[in-house]
């Protein structure tokens, strides 16, 4: 039976068919839907964890108990999980352990475009790269076999165009699983004291050599014979692009791409006149080939180190370098210039978003805002422009403290540094930063935007929502109590829709020399589908001054006819949150129900 599945859905199906017993993850685009799909298979225990390091550790424990285990995250999540990952390479596994890293070339929804294939080399574990949904499912099963056979975690690397592309997939069934036996205690294998770890390192190096030999014989790595003048080595989505750009060429299509299958590579090299490497981002395969002493005739000298590839780009770049036989349609079409003068349509905070009031006020106060990762990062864009840094999950809390330590306290509000962090991001890695502020007697103000969900990735539960991945009730972590327990004396809660309250609380806390935590609690309008009656504009009062437009809401629009200017509210978009009305000095924006009085 064939089904159309996204790469992420196919990975989940692969976990089901591979007999995975436990899967865990922290949500992050483009990886999120893997675990959401896994949650649809009751045979697999699945959970969101507060961050990727915890996910990796939960996964390792499950593996040690003998269960096949899937751990998923976006590329930058692997940075967080790197600590357990590096040493899991030494410990090896009991049940197969596969880490899915969903990379994001072109930064569709990320803060960088790091190429996580490099982790395979750095951690010294095998790397598998699927090239479509069918492979995402089938190769995941192979990944578990490799993990158990070679006693190693496996890095399974997807990219946005694999994870979020759909293709037809042939499905299979899940095997019957035996109950797990009581875990055997293998202290020297799993306790990485220096003496034990020292013995492991040579085994890790030997494992890489064995995997290279294995990779030359495995079906997933294959030579596709074609025109012997042109040989192309590629993997993952780049293979699909290159196949289309050069339909007649010979290909070495790699799925187990690290360690390179030395023997197979040498065989392919001997069959082709010229060898090209087609890969997105870093010259990962190319460097391996060069270190092997293999003559490469073109790679990153022809293709960009940045962004995504596509068939047309590959066809033109290689043709320019003298490679024959590109599909001519790509050479004819070229890239037509876009209309440069069109207004951009950047993503924006939703109408009714609970973050809007905070950013509108922060901008007015003129403070330096160390931001964080989430929907609220959009507070950096015009017209709000009330966020001035965003680096990684949890970074803002530490950064605001660092800033305040060196700038000193002038006593003026606008010289203060504050951090703004969402609830899910705070649980992920803001807590330790806050502990540091208390311990080292800092003064920074930490604003936690508690919208009761992990909004940017589509509304996943987190430790504060009182629900688990499968929507079961769970204990709810109490943010104010947590802040107090860390030693924060000034813990304030406020309604982010009340601009006066937001301003007065912010001013008070920015003026006091102790560290404080402000919790702005307003549920995500998208996730909780909050919709009140829309507001209206009294056109007899509105003079089009545009003060309301500073809140950056797409439900508002400035209209102009001749000299007359006025603001209109799109009723189909307005959720009745009232923030724009509070900004309007002449009170032209009228609450629902009030308009009737105005009209009469």
């Amino acid at each position, binding site marked *: 039976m064939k089904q*159309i599945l996204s790469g992420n859905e196919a990975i989940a199906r692969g976990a089901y068919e591979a007999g995975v017993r436990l899967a865990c993850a922290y949500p992050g*685009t*483009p990886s*999120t*839907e893997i675990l959401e799909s896994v949650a649809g298979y009751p045979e697999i225990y699945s959970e969101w964890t507060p961050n990727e390091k915890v996910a990796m550790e939960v996964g390792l424990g499950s593996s040690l108990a003998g269960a096949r285990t899937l751990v998923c995250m976006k590329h930058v999540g692997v940075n967080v999980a790197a600590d357990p990952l590096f040493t899991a390479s030494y410990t090896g596994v009991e049940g197969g352990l596969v880490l899915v890293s969903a990379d994001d070339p072109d930064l*569709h*929804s990320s803060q960088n475009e790091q190429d996580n294939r490099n982790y395979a080399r750095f951690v010294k574990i095998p790397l598998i790269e699927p090239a*479509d949904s069918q492979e995402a499912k089938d190769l995941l099963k192979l990944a578990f076999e490799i993990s158990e056979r070679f006693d190693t975690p496996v890095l399974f690397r997807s990219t*946005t*165009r694999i994870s*979020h*592309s*759909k*293709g*037809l997939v042939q499905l299979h069934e899940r095997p019957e699983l035996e109950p797990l036996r009581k875990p055997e205690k293998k202290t020297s294998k799993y306790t990485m004291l220096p003496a034990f770890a020292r013995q492991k390192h040579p085994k890790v190096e030997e494992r890489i050599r064995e995997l290279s030999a294995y990779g030359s014989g495995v079906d997933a790595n294959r030579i596709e014979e074609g025109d012997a003048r042109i040989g192309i080595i590629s993997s993952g*989505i780049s293979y*699909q*692009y290159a*196949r*289309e750009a050069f339909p007649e060429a010979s290909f070495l299509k790699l799925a187990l791409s690290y360690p390179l299958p030395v023997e197979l590579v040498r065989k392919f090299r001997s069959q082709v006149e010229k060898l090209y490497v087609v890969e997105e981002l870093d010259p990962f395969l190319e460097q391996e080939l060069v270190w092997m002493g293999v003559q490469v005739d073109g790679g990153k000298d022809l293709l960009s180190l940045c962004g*995504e590839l*596509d*068939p*047309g*780009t590959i066809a033109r770049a290689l043709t320019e370098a003298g490679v024959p036989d590109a599909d001519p*349609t*790509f050479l004819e*079409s070229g*890239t*037509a*210039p*876009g*209309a440069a003068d*069109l*207004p*951009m*349509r*950047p*993503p*924006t*905070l*939703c109408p009714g978003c609970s973050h809007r009031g905070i950013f509108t006020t922060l901008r007015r106060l003129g403070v330096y805002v160390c931001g964080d990762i989430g*929907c609220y990062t*959009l507070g950096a864009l*015009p*017209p709000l422009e009330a966020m001035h840094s965003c680096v990684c999950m949890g970074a803002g809390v530490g950064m605001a403290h660092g800033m305040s330590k060196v700038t000193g306290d002038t006593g003026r509000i606008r010289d203060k540094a504050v951090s703004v962090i969402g609830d899910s991001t705070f649980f992920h890695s803001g807590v330790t930063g806050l502990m540091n502020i208390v311990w080292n007697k800092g003064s920074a103000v930490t604003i936690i935007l508690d919208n009761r969900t992990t909004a*940017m*990735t*589509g509304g996943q539960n987190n430790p504060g929502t009182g629900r688990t991945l499968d929507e079961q009730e769970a204990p709810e972590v109490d943010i104010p109590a947590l802040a107090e327990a860390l030693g924060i004396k000034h813990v304030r809660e406020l309604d982010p829709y009340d601009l006066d309250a937001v301003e007065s609380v912010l001013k008070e806390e920015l003026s006091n020399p102790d560290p404080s935590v402000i919790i702005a609690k307003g549920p995500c309008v998208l996730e909780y589908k909050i919709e009140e009656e829309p507001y209206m504009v009294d056109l007899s009062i509105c003079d089009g001054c*545009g003060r309301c*437009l*500073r809140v*950056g*809401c*797409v439900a*508002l*629009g*400035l209209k102009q006819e001749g000299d007359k200017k006025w603001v209109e509210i*799109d009723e*189909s978009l307005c959720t009745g949150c009232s923030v724009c009305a509070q900004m309007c000095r002449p009170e032209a924006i009228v609450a629902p129900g009030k308009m009737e009085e105005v009209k009469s």
Partner: protein
Amino acid sequence: MTTDAGNRTTNILLSGVGGQGVILASYLLTQIAIKEGYDVKQSEVHGMSQRGGSVISHLRFGPQVHSPLISPGEADMLISLEALEALRYLPQLKAEGTLVYNKISINPSTVAAGLATYPGDVQERIQEAHSRSFGIDARALAEEAGNVRSENVVLLGAASPSLPFTSDAWYEVIREVVPPHTVDVNIKAFDLGRARTANKTQEEAK
């Protein structure tokens, strides 16, 4: 496009604004192409761009499809749910490709904030840049069908005469995919869209 669709890959690009239904329209197209026995690949982007931003979906079908992405300038058809998003992605279309777009305009956040203006001549620029274009007031037709949110299906109807699938095949897919209580509305939306372009030149379609 219909004459040799069986032997080559057909590339359809869909564009619009986050929340408008680009993803559902892509899904319907994907399902009908599968039913007709094609290999299909479809690609979209989730996450940040969905928050009211410009959204794009790539759909390709044919005997065997490798890349899920359509290379710039390689689209046989562009279906746009909003006029500015039609003009923005017009360079992605082949010279002989077909554009089907919704004439309504939705303000980008930059325009809502008074930082940019929505160009007043979007329709003219589209017509000037591309001769095979069908501009439809999909919102009005969706309202006529009974639900303003069926704009996406109106546009699929308007695109359908240029695609190698019968109306019956479309009805079947609509019945399978949309929620049961919206089937009638969506089929009406499809028919209203289709009637706008079937056997018509772009001039008559207006």
